[in-house]
């Protein structure tokens, strides 16, 4: 019944406009949050024993008769489902208070649930074309969500995002068409088997290049990152958290890694290209973040930088590197969404996103400041919080693979990250209290609850990281390290 992950958000999304007519605020809030909580608990309790033996293909039943859909449940997809549900729960909790002044809450929840359904579907797909299809579901929902406030900034950002994203989807689709031509099938198993039999390195290289361009844009890797600094600041804060925290990871990194590691097989040219792109992303993101005045824009550039770390970890290809990449993916989902939610709280209380105008907010908004400090220290890689361990794993993997230059550069990037986050904290929260903000209040209850939950999670993950690695990350890493064999073994249908 892993199918519930897709069906429940989908059904709820379709019913949400009707529910919105009945009760403007209470019922949509309640339903959306209850759903997210249910999915989160479900993913932990029910699905965990399923993957004990490797991966499983679940047959979907509809009232007893089998539909012809098979869903892929293995370590990697389950790990992503858990991450998606976690961040979504935090976001829906936060939205209870934040979306009050946008209006049309039922519509907002409907689009958000559709985006989540799309992401869940992508993660559970067994087929190249299904990945594309659910990618588009989540993308269309996100275009509307970025433009939700209907102000000119948001519309402009959404339009640019839409244009670039549509071109990226076209590249992905073209690549799928060529692969369909080469192997005669679209499913993972069929493609993997077909590619093994052929010897068409150039064409496969061309398709891989198209995939890197397409999924790289979705994941906001340099040089395909230009939409991110515009789209993330203008979107409502919970949507920025969703986009930066999960969407770029699921539609970009997950899809790319699933295809490259399990279907194509990681070849040395691919490793080189991805590592270079990763390192360049780390630096471009970090350097651009330093000069920013707008708090959310700085966070957006920081996302580009951290995704560079994740891609770098995966590109190394060794089990340790993959483990580091996965852990950093999870960590970044948590602390980046936490940072965006905090920025939203600050924006709602003070009415500005400009760091120049802020100052000394810690005295008036202690909870927000405290959680923000936790998140900033985590993302900068300060022990014993979670960011430190994931970056350490990636750097260790680089050293192990004898890429010493890259390891040094990664450490350098981490130092720069620490620097600009300290600047952020000092300008926004500490220092002298700016006179204008004498009367601001702390963020409303649900917003604070959600941010405190995420901050606690940062601390707990940091302290208990061996446990987390063994129970959650190792199965996922094994699946990915298994390489093409995984696709051939149990997907050959």
């Amino acid at each position: 019944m892993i199918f519930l992950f897709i069906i429940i958000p989908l059904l709820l999304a379709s019913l949400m406009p009707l529910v919105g007519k009945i009760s403007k605020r209470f019922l949509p809030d309640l339903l959306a949050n209850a759903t997210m909580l249910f999915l989160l608990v479900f993913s932990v309790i029910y699905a965990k024993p399923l993957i004990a033996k490797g991966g499983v293909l679940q047959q979907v039943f509809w009232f007893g008769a089998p539909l012809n859909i098979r869903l892929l449940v293995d370590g990697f997809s389950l790990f992503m489902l858990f991450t998606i549900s976690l961040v979504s729960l935090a976001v829906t909790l936060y939205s209870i208070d934040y979306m009050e002044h946008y209006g049309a809450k039922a519509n907002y929840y409907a689009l958000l649930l559709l985006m989540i359904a799309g992401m869940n579907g992508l993660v559970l797909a067994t087929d190249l074309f299904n990945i594309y299809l659910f990618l588009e579901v989540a993308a269309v929902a996100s275009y509307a969500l970025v433009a939700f406030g209907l102000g000119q900034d948001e519309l402009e950002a959404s339009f640019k995002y839409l244009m670039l994203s549509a071109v990226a989807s076209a590249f992905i689709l073209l690549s799928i068409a060529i692969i369909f031509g080469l192997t005669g099938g679209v499913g993972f198993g069929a493609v993997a088997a077909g590619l093994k039999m052929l010897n068409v390195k150039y064409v496969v290289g061309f398709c891989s290049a198209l995939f890197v361009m397409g999924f790289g844009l979705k994941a906001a890797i340099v040089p395909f990152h230009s939409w991110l600094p515009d789209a993330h600041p203008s979107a409502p804060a919970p949507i920025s958290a969703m986009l930066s925290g999960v969407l770029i990871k699921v539609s970009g990194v997950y899809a790319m890694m699933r295809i490259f590691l399990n279907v194509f097989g990681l070849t040395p040219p691919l490793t080189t290209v991805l590592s270079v792109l990763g390192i360049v992303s780390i630096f471009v993101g970090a350097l651009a973040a330093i000069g920013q005045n707008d708090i959310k824009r700085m966070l957006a550039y920081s996302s580009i930088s951290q995704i560079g770390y994740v891609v770098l970890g995966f590109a190394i290809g060794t089990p340790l590197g993959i483990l580091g990449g996965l852990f950093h993916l999870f960590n970044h989902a948590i602390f980046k969404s936490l940072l965006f939610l905090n920025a939203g709280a600050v924006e709602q209380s003070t009415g500005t996103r400009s760091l120049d105008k802020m100052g000394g907010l810690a005295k008036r908004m202690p909870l927000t400041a405290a959680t923000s400090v936790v998140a900033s220290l985590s993302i900068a890689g300060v022990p014993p919080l979670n960011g430190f361990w994931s970056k350490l794993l990636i750097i260790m993997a680089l050293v192990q693979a004898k890429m010493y230059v890259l390891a040094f550069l990664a450490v350098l990037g981490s130092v720069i990250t620490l620097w600009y986050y300290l600047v952020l904290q000092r300008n926004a929260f500490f220092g002298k209290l700016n006179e204008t903000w004498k009367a601001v209040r702390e963020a409303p209850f649900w917003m604070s609850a959600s941010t405190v939950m995420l901050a606690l999670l940062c601390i707990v993950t940091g302290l208990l990281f061996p446990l987390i690695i063994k129970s959650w990350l190792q199965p996922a890493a094994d699946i990915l390290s298994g390489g093409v064999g995984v696709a051939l073994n149990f997907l050959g249908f």
Partner: protein
Amino acid sequence: MNNFWILNMGAVALLIGIGIYCLLTMKNMVKLLIGIEIIAKGITLALVATGLAKNNLLLAQSLVISVIVVDVAVIATALAIIININRHTKSLDVRKLTKLKG
């Protein structure tokens, strides 16, 4: 692969090239959407031509139908955004969208 597939793929490349040219140079927002539409046509042609060459037309057609449906949703959303932008800036010029910088 036979020559027919190569010929079709050549046409696909042409269409995509035209679409990209449109995206790169046109300044009218609706024209940009036309450019995306042309690229989508190229992709559907690629899918059907590949299906023909592999003798698996039914699979190719189902893929094409899904792609066309997705295309409709994207174009509808894009047009909605353009109409809203037009309410703000009263023009359809992409060069007017310069409020976000850096």
